[in-house]
């Protein structure tokens, strides 16, 4: 059963029109890193600016490293999740530390019939489930909380995300920041008054740096 996900929008481009057209045409070979990245806008213009293709890369691993739970680590993904749901692509929470609260998700505009949660016994099952879903490609995003310290385990997820052109948000603990990661984007999150401070630690083809984001669901 072949299902091709809806063609994502190529967001924001600062390149002049004629050049954009030329670059997007298949005749120009530009090397792997610079190929137009398929992306889903994060909903935060200042974050989009730092990411290649102007948004969360579709078909890649995005590593989010919050300093604690409840600082806006979920809010930062919500606008993108909403857009993916609008394209009828489900989103799946795997091994989340708490229960995503349905009334709040509905308020944020997520159609609940497309929101799933998976509860597993151990990290291996969680990663397996994430891999199956990503590879299938129907779901638009997987949000996985993983304790895995093994880079290879994450690389499998990266490959699966690529195959299914989905976003794999992987939440990891701050002590993992010292280790290498196969993620295309790596962002450390810290609380700040009324906002969440997002430090883009690593971004393939984008600009690292720190920004403050107003995040829904944190009404201070």
């Amino acid at each position: 059963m072949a299902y091709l996900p809806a063609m994502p929008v190529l967001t924001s481009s600062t390149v002049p029109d004629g050049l954009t057209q030329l670059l997007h045409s298949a005749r120009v070979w530009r090397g792997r890193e610079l190929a137009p990245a398929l992306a889903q806008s994060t909903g935060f213009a200042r974050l989009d600016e730092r990411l290649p293709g102007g948004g969360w890369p579709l078909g890649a691993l995005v590593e989010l490293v919050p300093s604690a739970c409840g600082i806006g680590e979920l809010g930062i993904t919500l606008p993108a999740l909403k857009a993916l749901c609008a394209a009828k692509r489900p989103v799946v929470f795997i091994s989340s530390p708490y229960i995503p609260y349905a009334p709040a998700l509905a308020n944020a505009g997520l159609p609940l019939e497309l929101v799933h949660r998976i509860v597993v016994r151990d990290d291996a099952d969680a990663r397996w489930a994430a891999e199956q879903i990503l590879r299938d490609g129907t779901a638009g995003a997987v949000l996985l909380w993983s304790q895995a310290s093994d880079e290879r385990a994450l690389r499998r997820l990266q490959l699966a995300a690529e195959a299914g052109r989905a976003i794999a948000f992987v939440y990891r603990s701050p002590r993992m920041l010292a280790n290498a990661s196969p993620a295309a984007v790596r962002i450390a999150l810290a609380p700040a008054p009324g906002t969440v401070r997002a430090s883009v630690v690593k971004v393939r083809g984008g600009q690292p740096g720190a920004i403050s984001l107003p995040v829904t669901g944190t009404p201070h």
Partner: protein
Amino acid sequence: MLWLCASFPRLPIELRQTADVEPVAVIERRGSRRRIIACNPVAEAAGVQVGLDATAALARAPALRLLERSISQEARALKALAAFSEQFSSETCIDAARWLVWIEVGASIHYFTGLTRLGQKLRTEIAALGYTVRFGLAPTLEAAALLSRGRKERAILDPRKLRPILGKRPLNELAADGEILEALSTAGLKSIAEVAAIPAASLARRFGPHFTAYLQCLLGDAPDVRRRYRAPDRYRRHFDCTYPIDTVEGVLFPLRRLLQELQGYLRGRDVALQGLSIALEHRDAPPTRLELRMTTPQRDAPQLFAVLRETLERTTLPEPVTDIRLSADEFITPSILQTDLFDDGQWRAAGWSAVLDKLRARLGEDAVYRLGLNDSHCPEKAWCVRSDGKDAEPDTLLERPLWILEQPRPMDRAPQVLGRPERLEIGWMSGQDSSRDYYRAESPEGARLWVYRDCHTHQWYLHGLWG
């Protein structure tokens, strides 16, 4: 009428699904004689041939493993093939003793835009089941059968061409007893035309009415009133393993074919499955039973196989498997499957529930669920685990945190709260009267908490986080 005859010359060996690592042959006993009726490619490479005596075959290939012919297994395999073929035609016949399945294609030709494509499609699908097949095409059943057994696959489309074309063929191609053929040949006859030229009455006197009836049906002089095969409404398939299978991987191998056959059956009836039962039988232990339940009706072998694989990999076999029984009773004709070509969204939904079924098969039924809304005032009751059904309308006026705890967790000390409380009267309708004052608070780590104080006990609870 136009019949496509599929002949399965290697059926007795191919139905056993033996691994192609050792020479294996199937023998038939006739008195004290044991004759090879089929063998695998390894045996063939060693010089074993159909028709050879078992002793002679063993002389050529000493490692040759001999299996007894099983007429009942052959009949089961052919019936499964006929049920599978129903996806291509509404009329099917079988002859289990001769390893033949016929499908009427006259009506289907336009649908499949030509015979060539139909033939190709059928050949590919049968090859995927692991069978060698030869085709013959003709206006009568017996002519199609005869053509399928020739050296070259041939077709006769025009009934008037039956006599001239078949007439030229040697009489030993007739499906008749060896004794009859020998008698005819001793009488100096060579071709079918020469046999057909003999008056029917004298042929019947000499060889019995069956032979003349056969000739008439072959040449289209009399209608063939053979009974059509119709697969039963409940699907049953029994497979006896050639050798007991002791690994899950080993069981998956024959199951793949059984599911392919089932897929053909389902397509033929334009139905899908909601559930499937499989029993793996053992010599002494009670059967290992697998029950597959599908959220969305399925009829594609790969998807059924994926769900089955997950279930099986979670199963321990108490003993080697000797027999496999597959049964399906509940079929549905879901409208979505009929519009499949046009509605990508519906297919996507079906594919998605296949993925969820696969996850449930490994992680457990309760591990995968959808988040739902309840029409409840009480925060812990406002959400629910949902498998299907409709959600209550969200109350968009309420500000609620993105994370909620399964149960409110008592806090050791009073948190540093912010702003004014939201008072909730909980459970006054059910008599468990209690009121809570909900606040926002901040943890020392900077996490934004959703906490409440019980108005009666004054105990503080953590209930959620503003993720």
